[in-house]
């Protein structure tokens, strides 16, 4: 109760503190702020932190709240691909103390010795994490990573365009009835992987015959779909310009906000579950403050805020309890939710050899 009270007081004091810090009275804040346990050890906490995150992948209010609550100014820069982020970290001295790689990229960063082990004693909120989302192939004991958000890859469709909702990848490949009103993701792993899954192989399969078949399937599909598109398909789904598309679950959610006819399905042949993770680079300027920020983002209220913004799924069981009805309705009625039945059809987004996949992909994109 006392803790709740102090939280309420803190919430009430936030605007004042922001005003005070505008006036340059920083020291007053530090001494007056009640210790909430959300900010770690004040003496070890830095003043600022550089955070490298996916574009549009956090509610900006979380960072301003963290600054107001804990006095750490977070500078966030964004990337649009894992490769982009890894390149910056690999160059050394990137200055970032926290990065968010996707599962396969996390594996690559661990193997390349680019990240440091997490000190779990600094992240008590790790106990809130869904055991289903821990111990993934890239970090079996979660020594280096903790999950941030996850989502799925499947099919988004406009229910008004279908008498029978699609349940198979064939609706995007050999039985596509919506030529020029459909799209596949513009990504060698997502597109080739989906074709492989449809053909009965693993998402990350390196089977030579499988890749030949996937290539032919995609070359045929390319003649029908309006585009390979990873950027505009959300808007196109919402406006109805595209009625079926390979899509991420959260993307279907965004489109659904504007157009309730948009639905999502993980096809019978299978879909992909991918997960983005907190990781701290080896040469992070301030690993301690990064731990505190990870712990902060794993707070139930903060986690819920993040997930409602992204429309992905939270691995945080405590945060899941706080999700609004709007969010839950959107996810459940849109077919986006990962039920146990859906989970059984999902495989992790492991990545096969990049030479092989880019070879297949190039053959597709340069065809015709």
């Amino acid at each position, binding site marked *: 109760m006392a803790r709740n009270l102090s939280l309420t007081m803190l919430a009430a004091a936030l605007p004042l503190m922001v005003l005070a810090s505008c006036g340059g009275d920083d020291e007053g804040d530090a001494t007056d702020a009640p210790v909430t346990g959300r900010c770690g050890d004040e003496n070890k906490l830095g003043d600022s932190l*550089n955070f*490298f995150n996916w*574009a*549009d992948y956090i509610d*900006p209010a979380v960072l*301003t709240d963290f600054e107001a609550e804990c006095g750490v100014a977070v*500078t*966030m*820069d*964004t*990337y*649009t691909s894992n490769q982009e982020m890894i390149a910056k970290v690999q*160059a*050394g*001295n*990137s*200055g*970032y103390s926290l990065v968010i790689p996707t599962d396969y990229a996390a594996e690559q960063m661990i193997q390349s010795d680019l990240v440091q082990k997490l000190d779990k004693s600094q992240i008590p909120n790790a106990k809130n994490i869904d055991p289903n989302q821990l111990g993934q192939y890239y970090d079996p004991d979660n020594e280096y990573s903790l999950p941030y958000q996850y989502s799925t890859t499947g099919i988004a469709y406009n229910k008004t365009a279908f008498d029978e909702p699609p349940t198979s990848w064939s609706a995007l490949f050999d039985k596509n009835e919506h030529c020029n009103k459909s799209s596949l993701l513009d990504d060698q792993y997502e597109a080739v992987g989906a074709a492989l899954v449809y053909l009965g192989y693993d998402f990350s399969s390196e089977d030579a015959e499988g890749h030949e078949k996937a290539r032919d399937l995609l070359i045929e599909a390319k003649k029908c779909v309006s585009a390979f598109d*990873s*950027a*505009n398909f*959300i*808007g*196109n789904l*919402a*406006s*109805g*310009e595209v009625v079926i598309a390979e899509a991420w679950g959260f993307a279907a959610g*965004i*489109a659904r*906000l*504007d157009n309730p006819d948009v639905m999502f399905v993980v096809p019978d042949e299978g879909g992909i579950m991918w997960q983005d993770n907190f990781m701290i680079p080896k*040469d*992070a*300027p*301030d690993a301690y403050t990064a731990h505190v920020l990870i712990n902060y983002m794993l707070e139930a209220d903060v986690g819920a805020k993040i997930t409602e913004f992204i429309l992905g799924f939270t691995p945080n069981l405590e945060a899941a309890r706080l999700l609004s009805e709007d969010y839950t309705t959107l996810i459940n009625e849109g077919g986006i939710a990962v039920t146990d039945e859906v989970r059984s059809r999902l495989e992790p987004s492991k990545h096969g050899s990049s030479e092989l996949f880019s070879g297949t992909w190039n053959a597709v994109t340069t065809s015709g």
Partner: protein
Amino acid sequence: MTTARTRRLVAGWSLGTSSTLALVVLYAPVVVLVVFSFNSARTGSRWESFTLDWYRGIPEDRQLMRAIVNSAWVALIATPVATVLAVMLALGLEGSRFRGKRTTEQVLNLPIVAPEIITGVSLLAAFALALRGLNDLLGRGNADAIRFGKPTILLAHIAFDTAFATLIVRASLRNLDPAMAEASLDLGATRWQTFWKVTLPAIRPGVLGGALMAFTLSIDNFVITFFVTGPGSTTLPIEIYARLRRTISPSINAVATLIFAASVLVLGGALVAQAVGSRVNRRTLGATKDKEN
């Protein structure tokens, strides 16, 4: 007689059509962008209703504001530095002969000729090396190392801005009659006085043009900046690119519209300044002529 007239008519007509077409191709996308920045629909290409929300949202968007400030900071410093360097280089290259002049010219043209991506990658490698050396020298560790950031962006921008601005300043210097400077020197002015009172006023449109060019290049450079940016120094084009990957957000349309409006204003301002400048010049020249008469 008639054939010549028809030919002239046809020529005039085809010139009119082709320039109209060119203008449509150039400006139609901008019109679409401006219109959609007032569209209340968040996604897709359908018009919903008029709104100013996307514009109101800009000042509250910390990250966007930071990107705008970073871009302005870089461009506003890189432009004067590059322009001064360009004038100095142009004077040296046009006014004198020296050993290595051709080499200097070639080196200067490199940033123009070389693909930007090559310039970007090589700057990344060079800066990384230099920063590592610097950090070792100063004994700085992970916590307080000197890193990529606005200074590296600034250096990179000055480099390519200077190359382009020099080209423009040189062109206007070449059109300048060398007799003017010689006359000034003959009449007892020092080289310094000659530069300020004769050469610079005469090449002012070129210098202004060079500066405008440098500013524009700085503001919208993406490729080179992408490689040399560091924590917290994201510029506007990079921020816009990152956001477009998800979905074309109307707030980006709003920002782009504002930038477009700003460049139209700057360009208009430059034109007015030039018109006023040349009128003044003509008047002073006219006055001197009157006196001579």
